[in-house]
């Protein structure tokens, strides 16, 4: 497991460094190094103000979504669970759309804040609904409530956008989700959330291990199932909210990264602690790779993130599914 983690980390570093070089024009290592050391000129400007931010945001977003997905899947014991099912993306999108159409919000920082507020409000709504149906005790209810709330909010957003076409044009770049052209200042929002989420989930790792048993068994060894579940879902929501504020709704990543991480482990049953590390690294790696591909695949244009994520993630998923046989997730 340690070897896998180190290999993943090295791959991530390599991808991040390559990400500074690749794009419409490929730079030599010498140019990139000079730019990072405070060089001047157009090339240095492109590296430090365009490629560096998108790489950094890609890493933080990917790691956040990977960990968020892992928490969602382990808490609900459902392999279909993903951050979007907490209503995070839908809530963020609705608040942003509302902000743009009604209050005329235009700056990216404003959009980011609206997204975080919307994400957290939607999650709170999902939690309160699932609590009033008998509570965090039943993960299936949380998922169904989350899916329904997400669909409802998405329907509002779609109707708003169908009626107001100019808003659709301003928002299309945000709604399609991407790491490019985001101000690096957004990291001040996303990075603390990622740190809080990562530390918090390390504290929850042991009870989450126990929670893999059924609820009754977990209770009998002294785990407060309801509290652990709520705490983990809360962390998952914070992580995903940070990601949606930085990059817009990025789908698929939070779903796939934990599955890939799970299949990279050698042990028959990896501990949650191991999975946390691997999901963080895996999410970041996929995000950076997809971002590089998005610049190249339909150059000089930018391919949409969701499409590229699928192109990167699906072959990896199918390959790993076939490699490790006899092990259910």
């Amino acid at each position: 497991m340690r070897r896998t983690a180190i290999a993943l980390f090295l791959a991530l570093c390599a991808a991040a460094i390559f990400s500074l070089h690749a794009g419409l024009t490929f730079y030599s290592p010498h140019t990139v190094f000079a730019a990072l050391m405070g060089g001047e000129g157009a090339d240095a400007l492109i590296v430090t103000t365009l490629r560096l931010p998108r790489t950094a945001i890609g890493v933080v977003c990917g790691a956040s979504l990977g960990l968020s997905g892992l928490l969602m899947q382990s808490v609900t014991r459902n392999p279909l669970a993903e951050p979007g099912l907490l209503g995070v993306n839908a809530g963020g999108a609705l608040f942003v759309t509302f902000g743009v159409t009604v209050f005329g919000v235009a700056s990216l920082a404003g959009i980011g804040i609206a997204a975080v507020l919307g994400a957290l409000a939607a999650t709170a709504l999902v939690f309160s609904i699932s609590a009033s149906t008998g509570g965090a005790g039943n993960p299936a209810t949380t998922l169904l409530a989350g899916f329904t709330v997400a669909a409802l909010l998405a329907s509002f957003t779609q109707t708003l956008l169908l009626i107001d076409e100019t808003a659709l044009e301003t928002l299309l770049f945000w709604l399609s989700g991407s790491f490019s052209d985001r101000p690096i200042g957004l990291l001040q929002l996303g990075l603390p959330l990622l740190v809080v989420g990562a530390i918090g989930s390390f504290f929850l790792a042991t009870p989450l291990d126990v929670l893999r048993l059924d609820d009754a068994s977990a209770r009998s060894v002294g785990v407060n199932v309801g509290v652990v579940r709520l705490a983990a879902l809360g962390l998952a929501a914070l992580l995903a909210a940070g990601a949606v504020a930085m990059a817009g709704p990025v789908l698929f990543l939070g779903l796939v990264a934990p599955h890939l991480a799970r299949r990279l482990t050698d042990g028959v049953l990896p501990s949650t602690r191991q999975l946390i590390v691997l999901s963080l690294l895996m999410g970041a790696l996929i995000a950076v790779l997809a971002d590089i591909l998005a610049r190249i695949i339909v150059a000089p244009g930018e391919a949409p993130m969701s499409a590229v994520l699928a192109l990167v993630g699906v072959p990896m998923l199918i390959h790993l599914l076939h490699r490790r046989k006899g092990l259910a997730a």
Partner: protein
Amino acid sequence: MAGVSPLVRLLPVMLIVFVLTLAATGIGSSFMPPERVVAALAGQGSRMDEVIVWTLRLPRVALAILAGAALALAGALLQRVVRNPMASPSVLGITDGAAVGVVLFLWLFSDQANNLTVSIHWQPLAAIAGAAVFGTLVIALASLDRGGSKPLKIILYGIALAALAKAAVTLLIILGPVYRASQALTWLTGSVGAAHWQDVLAVGLALAAVMPVLLLQRLTIRQLVLDPQSAAVTGLSLDRAQVCLLAVAVFLTAIATAHVGAIGFVGLVAPHVARIFHGQFRSGYLVSVALTGSFLVLAADTLARIIAPPLELPAGALTALVGAPLFLYLLVKGRQSHA
């Protein structure tokens, strides 16, 4: 309520769908009061009313009812076969497969001037082919992959292929000309606005064709709720039953998607609403699922016509607006177990 016959339990839903049908036939750019609708239906109305009702409104209403029923049934079957309450036609790549079929069709058979070189009536066939290819691919990949639990494999491969199909659609739309993109996008949201009697006939025939299979398999569908061992003990041949029902679900989704586009949410939520409302172990559960699906799509389409006139929104954008509050209400009120 335990002793009440299933027919009595179904009666309220039937009544709601019936009333909604009358209302939906009356509502539109020219409003028609119910008595004129009934008169036109009975062939006693004015000539104008009869034309509006029979050639414009009724095909649309009928298509909404049938497509809703087909999508809801497909969802219920998938949730049973895959043993996951979150399974639905769109999760498993079938809807997106149909979308790939349609976008490819628009891409391949358009000439330089953006005119279709073949009749538009082939479009449903392209959708069905796409759905069938992706459905078969999911099943084949899952059965080639020995070990692990089968339902889980089906889900994972389904999600993977759905994502791949979505990516393919996005890239095809970007790389293709704008005209085709907007055409494809309209279809992808899902709408019953352009309904003809041919569409109604096609979806109706498909539903009629799967009816005998569902009747024969109705015990199996109930046994599938059990865990695999218990189901096997009750004499169920799991693999055969699963593949058969999966094929039915793919078929229903393909036909419905081909004629109304990718209307989401119905397949996921209708089975749950019916379960809370009717009970999933009572006879008539599937009928209740189908009626709920009909209600959702019909209500969404009716709302789509009145929400922002003269603009008509696609019904696919509004199914959640109708279904979500209803389902959340039932969820909170029901306080049942939903595992």
